[in-house]
């Protein structure tokens, strides 16, 4: 009798727990959907606003959804000041140079640190990480003065050098960890076959550290494409502006008596697309890089 009652109660509790788990699963599902909406809404609204016809994009109060779709804003952006192609080329050129400089500097250095008997190796490593403890924001004035002296202000190479300096510690750290994990047997086999250290680096080490190289390139690209303050300081000539700079200038600039909001949204959309694309394509590399770079 008691046993049956207990069993019944246990069953009832089990059912209640299951029901509650079911309910909370739906509730948490709804929370997830709400969070995704909040995170995506600003981006979606910006893209939609960039597609409004000229008059609607300048309307106050604004409309939520475009009443008609048009590429007007993109056309105005295309010819704004020096023209969008110039700014895109500047941003892309700087980002690609930053990737190139970062890899050319950190891959061999990480190889040396991981494999060669260099006296004072740890001290050198810490010195190379110097930029970690000095925020680059504090170094911009001396950098600017030096670049002005050697003619690197208003050049993509100059800006890429600054971006490389910012990105170097993270990249070196990732590359060194990755190269240290390459099995030495692979290299020894290559050396027995008469390969020089340079050939070992090219044929054994680089192919087996591809994921790390992708991570380093990805972070360099995103940082350089997005970086604002350094570009603001180093690039004073309109023709050398990067995308964020020209958009920031356009936010207050008056074309027809006020900010051209539609064009601004077109520029924002174009700036965001490459970052989101490379992130979605290379998500695993991005998250892996963040885990090992930011916390360890």
């Amino acid at each position, binding site marked *: 009798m008691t046993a049956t009652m207990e069993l019944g109660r246990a069953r009832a509790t089990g059912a209640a727990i299951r029901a509650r788990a079911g309910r909370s699963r739906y509730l948490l599902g709804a929370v997830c959907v709400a969070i995704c909406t909040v995170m995506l809404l600003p981006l979606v609204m910006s893209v939609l606003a960039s597609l409004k016809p000229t008059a609607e994009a*300048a309307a106050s109060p604004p409309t939520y959804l475009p009443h008609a779709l048009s590429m007007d804003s993109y056309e105005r952006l295309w010819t704004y000041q020096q023209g969008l192609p110039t700014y895109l080329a500047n941003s892309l050129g700087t980002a690609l140079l930053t990737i190139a400089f970062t890899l050319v500097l950190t891959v061999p250095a990480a190889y040396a640190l991981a494999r060669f008997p260099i006296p004072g190796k740890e001290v*050198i490593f810490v010195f190379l990480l110097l930029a970690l403890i000095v925020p680059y924001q*504090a170094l911009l004035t001396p950098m600017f003065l030096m670049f002005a002296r050697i003619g690197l202000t208003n050049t993509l190479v100059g800006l890429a050098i600054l971006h490389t300096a910012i990105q170097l510690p993270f990249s070196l750290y990732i590359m060194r960890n990755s190269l240290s994990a390459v099995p030495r047997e692979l290299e020894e086999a290559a050396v027995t076959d008469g390969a020089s250290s340079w050939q070992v680096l090219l044929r054994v080490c680089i192919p087996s550290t591809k994921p790390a190289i992708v991570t380093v390139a990805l972070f360099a690209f995103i940082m350089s494409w*997005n970086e604002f*303050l350094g570009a603001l300081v180093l690039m004073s000539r309109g023709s050398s502006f990067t995308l964020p700079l020209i958009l920031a200038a356009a936010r207050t600039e008056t074309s027809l008596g006020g900010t051209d909001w539609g064009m601004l949204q077109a520029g924002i959309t174009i700036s965001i697309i490459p970052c989101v694309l490379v992130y979605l394509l290379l998500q695993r590399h991005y998250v892996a890089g963040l885990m090992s770079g930011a916390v360890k």
Partner: protein
Amino acid sequence: MYRSRRSQLIGIAYLAPALVFVLAFTAYPLVQMVWMSFHNWSLITPAKYVGLDNYKRAFADDQFWVSFAFTLKYTAIITPVLIVGGYLLALLTSESSRLRRITRTTVFIPVVIGLGVSSLLWYWLFSADFGLVNKALADLGLISKPVLWLGVDAGRSNLAITASVVWKVIGFGMILFVGAIQAIPREITEASLVDGASYRQRVTRVILPLTLRTVLLVTLVSVIGSLLAFDQFYIMTAGQPQNETATSVFYVYLNSFPYLKLGYGAALSMILALTILVFTVVQLLLTRRSHA
């Protein structure tokens, strides 16, 4: 002996480009900044040694303190939101159902876009007459006339900017917390389930204590980032009203570039760099312990 001497030289050759680069583009500017901070210099006139005058001037400069206090206030407001919010999001999305994974990916998207660009986006959303925030609030009947979010009242500007930055970076902490939560050994989770622990007990007694180090590290990274805030204020308020929303980096920028007070700007940079250094050292010490 010969071989090892030779391989030493080869190693140094591989290392040399990076060494030269860091010497030229990090160490040298650092030394120059220290030197500049002891000089009075405006590009037009030759530099003059003034000892500690620039530092004394900074500590007597009202705007320096206004900027510093405003930066601290901004940091004090945004950090708990980012950490607590990021942790809650991590608890929600660390389980591996499809919807949770999609949520995690979505929350992280704004992290990869630029802070400058996201600030421009929110500059539009918070615009008094053309922004969707006021439009939505008006349509909901919550306001009768447009709210001037940016550049008129320091507190309200701070609120709007904080909201935009939370949207932009909350995924950063989340993703690192997810990593830490997922790294908790399965046996520990199972043992707590066998013991009949409720979800709340599992969070407070198991998950939180085991991820505390990550929480501390993310807090430090986040604090350092906030103390160095610039883009969002430059773009969304331009320091208005009356430089009340100019952060420390903003004030360094103003002095060094538009005003060309290079020595004074360098002294302000030094003070800023030393403040950040305190946090960085704590961060590195914590990191070190995790390797041991």
